[in-house]
């Protein structure tokens, strides 16, 4: 505990210094951190005012997650029942049940006070691949594979001026999936002179360019049953869509209610405007 307080304090101090100290005489703007290219903006079915998830795509993305990502990445907020929920992959309840039952889940204690294992139920959460963070780090070269639950909303990149203002009008909220898609396709040979640290992999879109995760996807790694191309490009696109749904499971409902609210508010504003005109018609103002 003492150790924790000590390190907390020194980090606190570091943050404080960083936040309040001046760069003083430095004249150059940061170069290293800004050298990461912006992820290209992809076209997503869930973008825009009428955005919705492509069921087949989210189902394929789930398959990629299940067969590839979930061997290292947890998703502790992801419940099996979500698979059958409206607005997502929309598997049938029977299918979701089958997925749940393919896992052994620890439950208990029972009447004898013992923990026991049983097949998963719809109400269970997706079992994590590692029992704790330390175990996850130990198996992944010291890096902690981030939890997928809200990851698609936890990743972004700087849009810059004036683009960030146009994004209000364009309703751009897909930084996360764009970044994830770009990252999964961003593994390259390092440029001349760039030394990738031990255990790292060069990635164009990862801040600092050295990522511990080895290229996770390769062509024909996951067998699609619907005839979609079995390429890294397609896998990454599908899994990014799945992650967006996982992070924002009520996205469709939100945009649908949003449209209805907008219509209501605009009509209401119109009525109020003409009422106001009528009330004020004899008063110059």
């Amino acid at each position, binding site marked *: 505990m003492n150790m*924790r*307080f000590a*390190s*907390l*304090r020194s*980090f*606190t101090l*570091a*943050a*404080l210094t*960083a*936040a*309040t*100290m*001046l*760069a*003083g005489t*430095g*004249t*150059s*703007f*940061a170069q290293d*951190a800004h050298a990461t290219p912006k992820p290209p903006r992809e076209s997503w079915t869930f973008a825009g005012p009428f955005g919705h998830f492509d069921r087949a795509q989210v189902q394929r993305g789930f398959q990629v997650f299940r067969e590839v990502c979930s061997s290292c990445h947890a998703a502790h*907020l992801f419940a099996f029942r979500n698979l059958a929920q409206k607005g997502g992959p929309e598997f049938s309840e029977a299918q979701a049940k089958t997925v749940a039952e393919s896992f052994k889940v620890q439950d208990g204690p029972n009447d004898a006070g013992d923990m026991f294992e049983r097949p998963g139920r719809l109400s269970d959460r997706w079992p994590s691949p590692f029992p704790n963070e330390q175990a996850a780090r130990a198996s992944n070269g010291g890096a902690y594979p*981030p939890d997928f*639950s*809200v*990851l698609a*909303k*936890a990743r*972004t990149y700087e849009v810059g*001026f004036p683009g960030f203002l146009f*994004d*209000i009008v364009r*309703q*751009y*909220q897909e*930084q*996360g999936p764009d970044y994830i898609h770009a990252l999964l396709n961003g593994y390259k040979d390092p440029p001349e002179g760039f030394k990738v640290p031990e255990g790292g992999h060069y990635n164009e879109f990862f801040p600092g360019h050295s990522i511990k995760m080895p290229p996770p996807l390769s062509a024909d790694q996951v067998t699609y049953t619907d005839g979609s191309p079995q390429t890294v490009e397609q896998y990454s696109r599908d899994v990014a869509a799945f992650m967006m749904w996982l992070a924002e*499971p*009520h996205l469709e*409902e*939100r*945009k649908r*209610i*949003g*449209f209805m*609210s*907008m219509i209501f*508010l605009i009509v*209401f*504003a119109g009525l*109020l405007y003409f*009422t*106001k005109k009528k*009330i*004020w018609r004899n*008063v*110059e*103002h």
Partner: protein
Amino acid sequence: MSGHATFEPKNPALKWFESRLPLVGLIHSSFIAYPTPRNLNYWWTFGGILSLMLVCQILSGVVLVMHYTPHVTLAFDSVEHIMRDVSYGWLIRYIHANGASMFFIAVYIHMFRGLYYGSYKAPREVLWILGVIIYLLMMATGFMGYVLPWGQMSFWGATVITNLFSAFPVVGPTIVEWLWGGFAVDNPTLNRFFSLHYLLPFMIAGVVVLHIWALHIAGQNNPTGVEPKTPKDTVPFTPYATIKDAFGMVCFLIFFAWFVFYIPNYLGHADNYIPANPLVTPAHIVPEWYYLPFYAMLRSVPDKLGGVLTMFSAIIVLFFVPWLDTSKVRSAAYRPLYRQFFWIWVAACIGLGWLGSKPAEGGYVIAGRVLTVYYFVHFLIILPLLGLFEKPKQVPASITEAVLAKGKTAASPATTA
């Protein structure tokens, strides 16, 4: 308060009640008969919009508290529980999170309007000061609210801001430990911030009552800055101001809904979807957008205590604006020089806001220093001197005269609806 009509109940039951507690009469004189200048433009609807936002934040907040758990190990997931499992929880939370930003957008417009039209001048000094107090309370409430989801920005924002108090000599470290409830930002900090985040909005509501009371004593300012002189200069609050405010509010709600339904995470920071981790510092610790101008000032001063004092002074100076502005003329519409300086100052504030979101290095720091100095020069030098040297335009004799003159020539700027 003199109104266009006074409230005389006909109903015997109401008569009985009114003679014991004149509540309906108070509402009638405050929101129905209350005389408002006939020339108010749409910038004056933001008072009503702010009241609406306060109610909206309190109602959505009360519902959120029913599902939120203020504990470092549970807070993040309880917010996600609201987003995923609570019926329309996503809607309530997005309304509350974006509502805070909308509240600040409205308050900034409201304050800029007051500064443009000289609404802080006698006899409205107390009204203005109460407004600055509300603004301060809003800043504290917004800050503590941002800490509650216990994401990375929550934690590190709380760390940076609470650490500011350590800059004060002697008592600084003690104050910080007292704020934290320990030796670092941890569960006790979260618990007290949660408690205060629930308390402060009701204090805001209390000061809002005083603010409206003071408003109804002095009466509203108006775009000409000339006080109403005859009953012809005013119209009763209902239906005239009521319908105009209602229209303004619904237009504002359209803007609000755009954010809630289509870009709900635009105003937040992605890092706050990463659970708080005391061992990992984010690359850039950025406060919410509405603190950015002050954050830029804080970082413009090479000394920690100096930075903190500069930042607080930037708000404190607002309390003295009624006395720093020496001009006899209220409205910028009749102050050609002040009008220009006002917009330069607005541009400086926006510039500081942009700089606050940038890393504190190189050219950004130099620009930040220039704008910080200008911010204070505006209040401490330009405002007092302008009143002495500026030649104001001819102020109309009355509101009615101004309105009729405009109706005839239609030449004056489009400040009216």
